[in-house]
């Protein structure tokens, strides 16, 4: 009899879990919609900014005044120090979302270690920070809360510190790793080189024939301001992208969990019915055999 009660309790508990996962899925899908919209709108701004930056860089390249030769574009052949920024979620329950990012970061670290490059890790998001703290790997910088609610000012403050360290020559390369949003059901690990800016990313073939006037006259000031803005915005956009991916990953995970719970309830119900029938049969046998013995 105790078995029956136990199964019943189990069914109840699984049903409760199912309620939670279902609710989390709904919350995530609502949040995903909002984040997706935000990402879509920011994308326009990012595209325009890249366009402008390409044009200026190209113009300076044509006039042979710095431009692509400045520190922001020049690739260091043998980097000594590399900064890896990575974005993870603050919360779990989103399948392999965080684990994938961490795995890629570990691969990168291993690769750079093999080349004798000093790696400085900068973490955004609690899950990544927890992982490296647990494994006692030092983090140069860490931020919590930014990946759950991307804020331009905060993102800019975070990245400009790293960018100024780059400008001073303390680091040779800045790489950003995050899990990006592709569609409702797919995410993709993205690895972007933030600085130096990869000239192949800028569309340099759009040759404008007209003379480009620049104000203020000092080209470098403008380029520097643009690069700064570009870097800040890449960071911000990656945060949004990561957040959208996080929600879609969580949605998927919770959907799978709900389906699993449903399956489990079904199995347990069958088990419960079997146990019930079994006990009835046993009882019947007991009664009948009792009656037989009284004859």
């Amino acid at each position: 009899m105790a078995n029956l009660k136990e199964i019943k309790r189990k069914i109840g508990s699984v049903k409760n879990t199912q309620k939670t996962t279902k609710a989390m899925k709904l919350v995530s899908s609502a949040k995903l919609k909002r984040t997706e919209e935000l990402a879509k709108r920011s994308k326009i701004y990012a595209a325009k900014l890249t366009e402008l930056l390409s044009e200026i860089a190209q113009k300076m390249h044509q006039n042979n005044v710095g431009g692509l030769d400045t520190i922001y574009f020049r690739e260091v052949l043998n980097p000594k120090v590399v900064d890896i920024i990575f974005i993870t979620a603050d919360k779990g329950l989103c399948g392999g979302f965080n684990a994938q990012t961490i795995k890629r970061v570990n691969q990168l670290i291993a690769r750079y270690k093999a080349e004798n490059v000093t790696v400085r890790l900068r973490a955004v998001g609690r899950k990544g920070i927890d992982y490296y703290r647990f494994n006692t790997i030092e983090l140069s910088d860490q931020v919590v809360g930014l990946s759950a609610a991307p804020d331009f000012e905060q993102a800019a403050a975070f990245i400009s510190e790293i960018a100024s360290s780059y400008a001073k020559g303390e680091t040779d390369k800045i790489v950003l790793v995050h899990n990006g949003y592709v569609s409702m059901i797919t995410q993709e690990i993205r690895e972007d080189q933030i600085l130096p800016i990869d000239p192949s990313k800028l569309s340099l073939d759009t040759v404008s024939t007209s003379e480009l006037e620049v104000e203020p006259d000092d080209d470098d000031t403008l380029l520097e301001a643009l690069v700064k803005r570009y870097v800040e915005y890449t960071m911000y956009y990656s945060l949004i992208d990561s957040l959208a991916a996080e929600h879609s990953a969580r949605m998927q995970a919770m959907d799978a969990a709900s389906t699993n719970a449903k399956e489990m309830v079904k199995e347990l119900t069958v088990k419960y019915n079997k146990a019930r029938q079994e006990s009835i049969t046993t009882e019947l046998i007991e009664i009948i055999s009792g009656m037989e013995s009284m004859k």
Partner: protein
Amino acid sequence: MELMKLEIVTPTGVIFDAEVRQVTLPGSEGEFGVLPKHATLVSLLDTGVIVISKTDGSELAVAINAGYVKVDEEKTTCIVDGAVSLSGEDGDIAKALEEAKKLIKSTEASSSAIAAAVSKVEQIGKSY
């Protein structure tokens, strides 16, 4: 009347995209106006007010904090960090003015630039 395309893009989306007659921009080296067929130009934008002269001759003001503008013969694209449209159409001009002032004051621009921008916003507010 000749027209040109004007686009104002902020991190939160495109806030203006239409044909206009003329636009006045707060460049970092001083305010300047752009008419159709303007030579190609790229400029930094300072805290201030963009004044758009629309096709029907009416004016629309947009307060911005900072950004860039790219002008070519057919199209002017403003890429700004933050913008508040000071239009009287939505009725709530007072609220828009407040927001614009807040936006302007939040920037790192010099105090004189902020004062100039605020006074301009107030002037526009009186005209409604």
